[in-house]
């Protein structure tokens, strides 16, 4: 037992990281921290993909991880550009303050 890790431990770690990402996304007010919690969730999902790829001895899981990384990179670029634009207009990074369309 000392030299092998049960596969459910990896999946539990992925669940813990995903739950922490959801917590950060829901409870934090700073827009950059919210964005980083999204990246944390994506990383947790990547770990799940690679774990299942090990279980079935297939390489397809690795490819899904690769595509998730590419999409995360594109999303980070556009998302940070949006954050920069919002900051230029409102001078605040608190998402509670971006409420000028509220009645």
């Amino acid at each position, binding site marked *: 037992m000392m030299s092998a890790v049960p*596969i459910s431990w*990896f999946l539990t770690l992925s669940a813990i990281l995903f739950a922490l*990402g959801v917590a*950060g996304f829901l409870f934090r007010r700073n827009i950059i921290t919210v964005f980083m919690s999204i990246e944390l969730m994506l*990383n947790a999902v990547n770990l799940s993909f690679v774990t299942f*790829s090990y279980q079935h001895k297939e390489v*397809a899981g690795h490819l899904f991880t690769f595509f998730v990384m590419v999409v*995360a990179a594109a999303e980070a670029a556009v998302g940070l550009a949006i954050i920069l634009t919002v900051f230029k207009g409102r001078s605040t990074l608190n998402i509670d303050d971006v409420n000028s369309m509220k009645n």
Partner: protein
Amino acid sequence: MDVILFLIFAVVAVVCAINVVVQTHPISSALSLVGVMGSLAVLYLLLGAEFIAAAQVIVYAGAIMVLFVFVIMLLNAGAETKKGRSYLIPGAPLLIVFLGLMAFFVQRIFPDNTMVRFGGFTGGGPKEIGTALFTTYLLPFEVTSILILVAIIGAIVLARKEIE
């Protein structure tokens, strides 16, 4: 030996993830997220995913997080000030229950008969990934290249200075 490695890097990953969510200054959160990605890269190596581990460090930790750190430095984002009521007090027990349910179902569906050993899966090298990427998954590969082009154009258009 594998168990010790897994435990060390899993604990590092969870501690850094908690740090990402709890810290007030965005740059501490960003550096903790780099720590999470680094420890996940080691866990990928344990699972035999060598190319994905290298790609994680080069692309995710070495480029995307550098972009985050840049934006934080450019915006000179300070530590978050306390404003409004935080939903953490009612939210934390709910989250722990959610987590416990997920962990319980994971352990039920995937009983401990598959064991992960270092070297148990050798099909994750660059050669296998390259073959699969250019034969079975050629269409998604080409579509992601167009996606990256769209993202580049979008980022440049959104972040440029307006010419008066």
